[in-house]
C-alpha cells in the first residue's frame, strides 16, 4: 500500500507515493534518482548514507521515507552553488586529497558539515571524535581531517 509524502529535497518539493517500509535512502536513490547518497551497510554503522534532515545530520538507511513527510532533506547534490562553484567542504576534500575511491565521500562531507556547523572551532581530535560514525577504508582519515579543518577555516572566513 503506497502512502503519499511531500519532501523538500535540496530545495525542490517532491510529492510521491512510497511504501511505508521504504527507507529514505532508497527513496532518494531509486525514486528521486539522487544516487550521490550511498549505502555501505545495513546497520547504521558506516555513515555512507549521511544526509541532513531539517538541519540535523542523520542516516538515511535507518530513516523511513514516511518519517520525512513535510521535512527538508539536504544531500550531496545540494552542496554546489547554482553557478556550479563547489561548496567549501567539496573544495577542501579536493584540495587536501581527502578522498580516494569516493564512496564514503558524500556521507563524510555531510557529516563534516554538521560538525562544522555545531563546532566551528573543533580541534583535530574533536573532528576525529565527531566523525567516528563515518568509516573510510581508503584514506586513513589523515587527509579527511585536514579537509574538514580547511573547510571550517574557509567557512569561518567567508
Amino acid at each position, binding site marked *: 500500500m503506497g502512502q503519499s509524502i511531500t519532501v523538500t529535497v535540496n530545495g525542490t518539493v517532491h510529492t510521491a507515493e512510497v*511504501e511505508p*517500509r*521504504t527507507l529514505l535512502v532508497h527513496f532518494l*536513490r*531509486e525514486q528521486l534518482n*539522487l*544516487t*550521490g*547518497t*550511498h*549505502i*555501505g*551497510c*545495513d*546497520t547504521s*554503522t*558506516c555513515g*555512507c548514507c549521511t544526509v541532513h534532515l531539517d538541519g540535523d545530520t542523520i542516516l538515511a538507511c535507518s530513516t523511513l521515507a514516511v518519517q520525512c513527510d513535510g521535512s527538508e532533506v539536504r*544531500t*550531496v*547534490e545540494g*552542496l*554546489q552553488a547554482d553557478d556550479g562553484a*563547489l561548496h567549501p567542504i*567539496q573544495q577542501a*576534500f*579536493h*584540495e587536501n*586529497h581527502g*578522498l*580516494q*575511491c*569516493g*564512496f*564514503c*565521500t*558524500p556521507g563524510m*562531507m555531510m557529516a563534516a558539515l554538521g560538525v562544522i556547523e555545531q563546532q566551528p572551532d573543533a580541534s*583535530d581530535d574533536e*573532528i*576525529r*571524535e565527531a*566523525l*567516528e*560514525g*563515518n*568509516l*573510510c*577504508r*581508503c*584514506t*586513513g*582519515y*589523515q*587527509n*579527511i*581531517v585536514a579537509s574538514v579543518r580547511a573547510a571550517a577555516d574557509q567557512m569561518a572566513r567567508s
Partner: protein
Amino acid sequence: MAVDYTTQTTGGIGDAVLRKEDRKFVTGEGRYVDDLKLPAMLHAVFVRSPFGHARITAIDTSAALALPGVHAVLTHATLPVETGVLSASNPGGDVRHPEQAILAKEFARYAGEPVAMVIADDRYIARDGADLVHVDYDPLPVVVDAEKALEPGAPLVHAEYDSNLVKTLEHVTDGFDDAMAKAARVIKLRVDNQRVTPMPMETRGCIGDWSDSTGEVTLYTSTQVAHFVRTFVSIVCGTSEAKVRVVTPDVGGGFGAKLNTYREEFAVCAASHAVGRPIKWIEDRTENAVATIHGRAQVQYYEAGVDDNGRIVALKFDAVQNNGAYNMLLTPSISHLTLFMVPGLYDIQDISIRIRQTFTNTTPTDAYRGAGRPEATHGIERLMDAIADDLGIDAAEVRRRNFIQPEQFPYSSATGLIYDSGEYEANLDKALELSDYAGFPARRAESEQNGKHRGIGLSTYVEVCGLAPSAVTAALGIGAPGWEHSTVRLHPTGKATVITGTSPHGQGHATSWSQITQTELGIPFDDVEVIHGDTAFQPYGLGTYGSRSLAVGGIALYRSLGKVREKARELAAHLLECSIDDLEWTGTAWQVKGSPDRAKTIQELAYAGWTSASLPEGIEPVLEATTFHDPPNFTFPNGTHVCEVEIDPETGRIEILNYTAVDDCGNVINPLIVDGQVHGGIIQGLGQALFEETVYGEDGQMLTPTLVEYLVPSAADVPPMTLSRTVTPSPSNPLGVKGIGEAGTIGASAAIVNAAVDALSGLGIRHLEMPMQPGRVWKAMQEATS
C-alpha cells in the same frame, strides 16, 4: 607531515597534482554499479546456507514463486551455466581444485554459500521472496580451524579427497641442515596471522544483461579485474569472449576483495539469459562479510638459528594456510607470495619453508591488501624482536646486522627472487631520526611516572611488487600472464586519449597517467583523457592489484608515449626536410638542433599525422601506439615503520602516540597520491593489529558479520602519521618506480605489535597476538603479573 610539497592543479612527473577524478565524487556524480538502471531491469537476492556444512536434500520454491512481483527462483538445477567457478592458480600443478558450482549443488560447505537466487521487480520483493524459499538441510560435521583440519579424523570439507590438504608448498636450501646445526642458539616463535575481512566501503554488486537477439552479454560489475571476469564469464556461460563486455563503473574500493571472479557475477548473466531481462544484484554488508573473500588466516611456526652476534644463519618456517572451503581465483598462490618473502630484507641464505594449505568450512580466502606478504613481514619482524630480546641487543641493531647491504644488489634471495635495489640501513636511520628513537627512554620514564606502559616498535620491510613477469606467473602455475596494455592516441586537436588496462578504484590513475603523458609527450595534463573500465574500449588488460599499476601499467604507458614521440619525430623530419638525427626533443616539440624557429610542436604533428597530407614513406596516418609491456622483473619497495604506544594498565587500551613511516617506492609520480596510499595502507595494517578479526564459532557460524562486530578503524581510533621517503630507483623499469599500494599495510602491523610488546616487556610479556583488543591485552597483563 615530513614530506613537503605544494599542491597544484596541473603538472608532470613528480608534481603534487590535485586529482582530476575528484569533482564527480565530491558532487555525488560518481557512478557506482548500484547507481545504474537499465530498462526492464529486475533485482536478485540470494538464498544462502545458514550452515557451515550441510547436505541440501530439497529446495521448495513454490511459496516464493507465488509472491506477486517474483519472476523466477533459480537453483543449481535450473541456472543455465556450463561449469562452476574456476581458479587460475595451480602452483606445482597438483593443487586440489574441487568443483565450485555457481549455486550449491548437493552440499553447502560454508555459511553464506549461495543456494538459490530469487528474481523480482525490486530488491524488497526479492528479499521477501528469498525468505519464502524453503531449503531442507542435513547438517554435517564442521571444521573451521586450519590446524585442526589437518588432524587425522577431521571432518572432510570435500568428501572426494582423503584429507583437507589443498597443497603443500616446500622450499629447502641445500645447506639448511648444516647451517641450523651450527647455530649458537635457536629462537622459536608461533605467530597467528588472523583472518580478516577486506570490507571495501562499496560492497560488491553487478548487473547482467544478456541479449537473446545478438547473443551479447554485458556485465556491469564492481571489480578490479574486468578482463579476467570477461574470459571467465565466457567460459562459465558457454559463449565467446568476443560476445562478452564487462563494464566497471566507478568502484568503491577493492583491497583485493574485487580481485576475483565471483559466483554472483556468473549468476546474474545466466539468470538474465533465463529470464530475458537485465538482473541487478547488490551485496548487502552481511553478505559482504560471508560471501566475499577473506584475507590472511595463516598460522606460522618460526625457528631462527642465530650466531652469538644475532646474525640469522638458518631460518625454518612452517605454516598452515586456511584456504577456506574452495579455491578462488588466486587462493593457492597467496601463500606462495608468503614463501617468497619469508627472509624479508635480511641476508639469510639457508632456509627451510613448508606451507600447508587446507580446506575448512569457512569463506574462501584470497588476496587482501599485501596478499601473503604482510604475513611474511609480520612474522619475521616479530621474530627479529624476539631475537633482539633473547640476545639483549637493541631492536634496530639486530636488524642492521642482518640487512642485505647496498653493494649486494641485485640480490639473489634464498627463495629465488632477484631484489632490484634498496638502501635499508639509510632508510632505517632516517626513520629512527624522525621518530626520535634515541630519545625514547626519557619518554618511557615520563610515561611510567604517569602510571602508563610505553613502548616503541620497529618494522623494516621489503615487498615483492609489480606483478608480474609472465614467465614467473607461468612457473608458479598461474594460468594467466602479468603484462599490461596501453594505447596512446593523439587527436587532430592535439589532445590525447590514453587507454589503460589498469583498473583504478581510488588510486588516481587518470591523474598520474596524465602527468606521465605531460612529461613524456608534452601534451598538457588537462588535454589528456584516460580511459579505463570498459572492455569494449580497453581490449586487453589485467587490472589493478599487487602494487602493479604503475610499475607495469605505467611502464606500458611510458613505452607507448615513447613510440608516439618517435613516430612524431619521423613526421617532423619529413615536414622540416631534415634527417631525424638533426632533431632534438624540447619536451613539447621536435626542433632542428640549435634552430628554435625550425620546429614542430607535438600538437602540430598530431594534426599533420591525422590529415596525412604529406607522410614520410612507410609511415601510417595518425599518431597512435599500443604496447603490451611484460616486466622483466618484480620491483621491491621497502621501508621502515616506527610506532610508539602507551598502554593503560587499568584497561589494556593501546594508544598510539607517534607513527612514522619512511618508505622507498622508487621514483614518485605524484607525492600527494603516494602519501594517500601510505596513509590508508597503514590504517588497514593498524586495523588488523588492534581491532579486526573475522571470527567463526566451532559450528561454522560467522560471529562477525556486520560492522558492529567487525571493527574497522574510525577517525577517532587512529593517529596522525608522519611520512617520509628515501628513493632508490628501480633499475627494472625506465621510470625507476616500484609501487606503493600495499606498503603501508605490509609495514604497519608488526611495528604496532612490537611497540605493544616492548611496552609490556617489563611485565615479562614476550609476545602478543593480533588483534590486540583491550580485553586481550588486559588479560595478558593480568596473567603476567599474577
